[in-house]
């Protein structure tokens, strides 16, 4: 029940196309790679291991058993509670984002299996307004936790978000409280929550559920933090150290359990769920 959409989202870093194939430069090492080859490795550079953005469709393909995914609450759409206009009306921004991404808001949640193990699964859609968390995202995450409790499922949630959605103002901030409250109910139900921080996971998403996993996983090189780097630089009037707020930095500082390449995630998640005694039904 995936919405119709254009082919896998490679266009953001599309650099050049010549001859028959489409070529792209790796953002990490600068090596020229064919789009075909990158697609085969789920957008991970074979030379330097750089993880480029992966489309939502391909995340589902990578992590869930084929054909096992069933979306939850796929028809929730945002409204414009503040009448927000910043040169462009918020409803127009939503329409543009929906057209561009093929999704109704910035998260996809649902039920699927990982090596036959049923899980509640969610992944942020970064190309939809920077994966920002407004009312729809908050509601879908909350419902995902609530359904996981009702159906006794572990929750695996992949975050990729700039934080709260400014155009929904204070109601976006309230989604932090709402999602964390639901996460705590999952805790009481003794069901695992594996929180995965993709690039980037910042602001109101980082400061709510993203670092409250029973196990916190990050993708290599992912930017994870509370404040934006420009804000910090402007506040302290210093340039930031190399690698600041990257996944490795967070692991060094005790905030992340494991840094896992995306192609190893499925095995990893399944193993953790098994170790946390989550029944396979």
């Amino acid at each position: 029940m995936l919405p119709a959409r254009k082919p896998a989202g490679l266009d953001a870093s599309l650099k050049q196309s010549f001859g028959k194939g489409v070529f792209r430069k790796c953002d990490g090492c600068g090596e020229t790679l064919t789009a075909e080859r990158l697609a085969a490795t789920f957008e991970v550079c074979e030379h330097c291991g750089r993880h480029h953005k992966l489309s939502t469709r391909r995340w589902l393909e990578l992590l869930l058993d084929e054909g096992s995914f069933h979306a939850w609450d796929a028809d929730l759409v945002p409204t414009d509670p503040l009448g927000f206009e910043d040169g462009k009306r918020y409803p127009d921004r939503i329409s543009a984002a929906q057209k561009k991404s093929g999704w109704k808001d910035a998260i996809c949640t649902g039920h699927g299996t990982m090596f036959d193990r049923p899980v509640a699964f969610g992944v942020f859609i970064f190309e939809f307004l920077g994966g920002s968390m407004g009312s729809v995202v908050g509601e879908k995450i909350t419902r995902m936790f609530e359904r996981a409790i009702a159906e006794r499922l572990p929750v695996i949630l992949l975050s990729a978000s700039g934080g709260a959605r400014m155009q929904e103002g204070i109601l976006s901030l309230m989604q932090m409280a709402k999602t964390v409250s639901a996460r705590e109910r999952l805790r009481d139900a003794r069901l695992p929550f594996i929180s995965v921080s993709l690039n980037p996971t910042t602001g109101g998403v980082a400061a709510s559920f993203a670092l409250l996993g029973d196990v916190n996983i990050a993708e290599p090189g992912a930017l994870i933090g509370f404040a934006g780097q420009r804000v910090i630089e402007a506040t302290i009037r210093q340039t930031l150290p190399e690698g600041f707020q990257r996944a490795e930095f967070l692991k060094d500082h005790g905030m992340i359990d494991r840094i896992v390449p995306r192609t190893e995630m499925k095995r990893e998640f399944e193993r953790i769920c098994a170790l946390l005694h989550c029944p396979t039904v």
Partner: protein
Amino acid sequence: MAFVLPFEKPIADLIGRVRELRAVAVLRGPEGLDDDGDDPIEAELKALEGRAKDLAKEIFADLTPWQKVQLSRHPARPYTLDYVSRLITDFTELAGDRRFAEDESLIAGLGRFEGRPVAVLGHQKGRGAKDNVRRNFGMPHPEGYRKALRIYELADRFRLPILTFIDTPGAYPGIGAEERGQSEAIGACLAAMARAGVPIIATIIGEGGSGGALALGVANEVFVLEYGTYSVITPEGCASILWKDGSKADRAAAQMRMTADELFGLGVVDGVVEEPAGGAHHDVDATADAIRATLRGSLDRLSSLTPHALADHRYARFRRLGTFVDSAV
């Protein structure tokens, strides 16, 4: 009053004249009385004071959202400890997060509210440059939030209602704050508040800046002072992201609907506490009295609920915040 906002000036001028007249009245002896033994200066003073109040009401009735933001940050505005000293007896401050440091931008303690033991938490801004260094302008590091976390758990264990006072531009954005897990520290506060089996009542007394404010805001009932604000980002931050121009903060303030009446309309706060004419800084005692009445009412409503029901009540309160449409229906 040392600091005066441009729109406060007519009020400040009038109040200044009242002060001068009072000084004259004090110096002058009984020969100033008229034939009936009344004091004409005293009568004029009363009239002037009345006019100052009317003028304040008139001016404040038409404040823009941006002017209200400026009031919420007014340097003379009462801060958490100004209210704690008026509302809480036996106040016993508790320091430190037991992990790394004491953070004085967020104060915590035990005390009594109208005789009943409570836990108290609040952001604390400084008055003047030196005090603001100590208080870090009311912007906590992770240690502040981990102190709060400790208090949430302590209060839950000893069944103490928790009163929080929100007044921060936001959690501090710095290298050390990130190294020590600002995100996790705030997230953990939201979680602890969500879990607590005691009444939690939050009052936004000044600025409610983003996640750093929400870490004290997951309450059963949330109130805001008439000139308090609550927003997902500062208007300056919003303007600099949207228009690459922080000076358009006035426009951002209007767009974000961050003033008390807007917050009430959105269901984000449960009530607005009226401030004295001219704002809380014109009469701290009266403002504290108004907060006291609000807290008393709230505690009365919540006290009969069981620990479980209190957590459920809080869950339901935040569960319904947000707007969306199910397009399949």
